């Protein structure tokens, strides 16, 4: 290959490589300013919900059961005020072929890749998505490469990520493992260019549309079981796709009154691209290190315009501590007989507290579970934490300092959530839109777009624009 493969040269070919690897001309939906036509992008490049149900049906994805967590509800009511304590339900997404809801995203991506004639798929992910793509690629007869950020400079790998590498290889995929750093994207581009494979990005319209069935099923199942839609759905939030897809599916089912609550594990103070802090965290996904940056700037992803736009759909956003999620993972096994997670149990930990604010006849849904296994389990993850100098304590999780300790709640009364002020998050998003496009005056379309993309109103958006001296 006569091409210049230096870091700078490959990064400069980014948009050309991506166009070939995703098959979408994102330029078609751009306005040349902040705004782009999100809904048209989703419609023209994605699939209808009915098509996706068929696609996912072909490979056994979706239609996962919803389980009522009666013992957990009972436990929450011990701590709830009189008459409070909503019924808690969980959608057992671990029942998908690769053990998580990510199979939904991978199903549409792999179907699309096959339809367009690609020989293989590549995904950059250290999470369950890798296994999902590898599993779906196996079913569709596609080759698969997964690129993982896995080790620190001492060659020490997070057990959770190592396990996911094993699972990808079990499905016949090649796993490329790297040390910490965003330059993973360079290796990713080199591989896309070399192989000509499809970029099975988490953030394409088909990937996100794949999650819509999850929200749609929740509404359908609740109407069958309870005769109505749930009052609240709690979603573990990282890159924003889970929340976006689920919310869109609920809306498509007509469940427009259901509150959408995002939940992330708090990793406050830890830098995600830091080599020395990489193994100080005990969660590799579902945390604020992805949740906040992706909410305030979704277009940082591996495609020019991310289809995952969580602020568009989020009504509320809470965080929980690492110790709280580990505790709830143990509780789920001990009183509900379900060994799942741990990362996927972030929304479960939040729901336990949120249910206590709601009336007893209300319904709250934890919309996913994920498989558990060697490395990906509270014991190996806490063992790894201890080996990396993290203290494991029992006490008040409010005192937890990510990177220093993990505090398991002394009893369920210590389980709490912390509210993220969405006004601030929305403001940061608008600020990033302004700074990254360098506009001095926004268009009518931009204003409408910013209102929609932050689920806010004209007055709020204008107040932020005033603050940054941007004309409208």
């Amino acid at each position, binding site marked *: 290959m006569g091409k210049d493969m230096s870091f700078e040269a490959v990064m400069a070919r980014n948009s050309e490589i991506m166009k070939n690897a995703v098959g979408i001309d994102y330029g078609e939906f751009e306005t040349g300013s902040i705004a782009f036509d999100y809904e048209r992008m989703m419609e023209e490049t994605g699939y209808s919900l009915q098509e996706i149900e068929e696609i996912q049906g072909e490979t056994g994805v979706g239609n996962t059961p919803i389980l009522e967590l009666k013992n957990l509800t009972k436990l929450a009511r011990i701590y709830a005020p009189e008459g409070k304590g909503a019924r808690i339900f969980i959608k057992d997404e671990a029942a998908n072929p690769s053990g998580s809801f990510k199979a939904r995203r991978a199903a549409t991506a792999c179907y699309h890749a096959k339809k367009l004639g690609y020989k293989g798929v590549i995904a950059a992910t250290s999470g369950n998505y890798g296994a999902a793509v590898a599993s779906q690629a196996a079913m569709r007869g596609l080759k698969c*490469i997964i690129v993982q950020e896995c080790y620190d400079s001492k060659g020490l790998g997070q057990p959770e990520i190592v396990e996911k590498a094993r699972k990808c290889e079990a499905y016949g995929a090649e796993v490329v493992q*790297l*040390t910490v750093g965003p330059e993973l994207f*360079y290796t990713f581009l080199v591989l896309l260019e070399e192989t000509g494979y499809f970029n099975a990005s988490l953030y394409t319209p088909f990937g996100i549309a794949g999650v819509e069935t999850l929200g749609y099923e929740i509404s359908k199942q609740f109407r069958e079981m309870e005769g109505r839609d749930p009052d609240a759905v709690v979603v573990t939030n990282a890159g924003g796709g889970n929340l976006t897809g689920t919310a869109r599916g609920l809306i498509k089912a007509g469940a427009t009154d259901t509150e959408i609550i995002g939940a992330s594990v708090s990793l406050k103070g830890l830098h995600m691209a830091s080599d020395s802090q990489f193994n100080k965290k005990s969660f590799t996904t579902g945390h604020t290190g992805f949740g906040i940056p992706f909410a305030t700037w979704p277009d940082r992803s591996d495609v020019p315009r991310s289809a995952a736009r969580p602020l568009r759909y989020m009504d509320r956003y809470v965080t929980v501590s690492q110790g709280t999620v580990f505790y709830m993972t143990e*509780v789920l096994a001990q009183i509900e007989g379900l060994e799942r997670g741990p990362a996927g149990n972030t929304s479960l930990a939040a729901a336990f507290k949120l249910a206590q604010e709601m009336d007893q006849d209300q319904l709250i849904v934890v919309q996913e579970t994920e498989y558990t296994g060697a*490395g990906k389990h509270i014991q190996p993850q*806490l063992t790894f934490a201890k080996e990396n100098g993290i203290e494991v304590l029992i006490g008040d999780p409010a005192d937890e300092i990510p990177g220093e300790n993990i505090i398991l709640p002394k*009893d369920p009364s210590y389980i709490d959530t912390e509210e993220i002020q969405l006004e601030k998050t929305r403001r940061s998003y608008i600020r990033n839109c302004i700074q990254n496009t360098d506009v001095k005056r926004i268009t009518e379309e931009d204003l409408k777009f910013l209102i929609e993309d932050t689920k806010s109103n004209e007055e709020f958006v204008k107040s932020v624009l005033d603050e940054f001296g941007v004309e409208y």
Partner: protein
Amino acid sequence: MDAKKGDWVRIHNIVLEAGQRAPNIPEDTQNVPLELWDKGFLLDESARIGDKVEIETYIGRKMEGTLIEVNPYYEHDFGKCVPELFYIGRQVRNLLEKDGE
């Protein structure tokens, strides 16, 4: 000789040297190289650990790197006993039992 042609091996590469890292990343990360690991079948007739070799990955891609392991295997497991976890199950079961009385 540590490995012969066709053996399943693990190789290592430096993608970016410490001085070549992206400018906007934390200093501790800039001070270390970006490293890469991959696995495949050895294409060289024979090799020793530390040799520069060529492999064919499981999906059939060819690549070069330094041989570091033959017949690599996973060592992750279910961790050690974590005594701090033992109170949880008993505690919540007791709470539910008491609540039922």
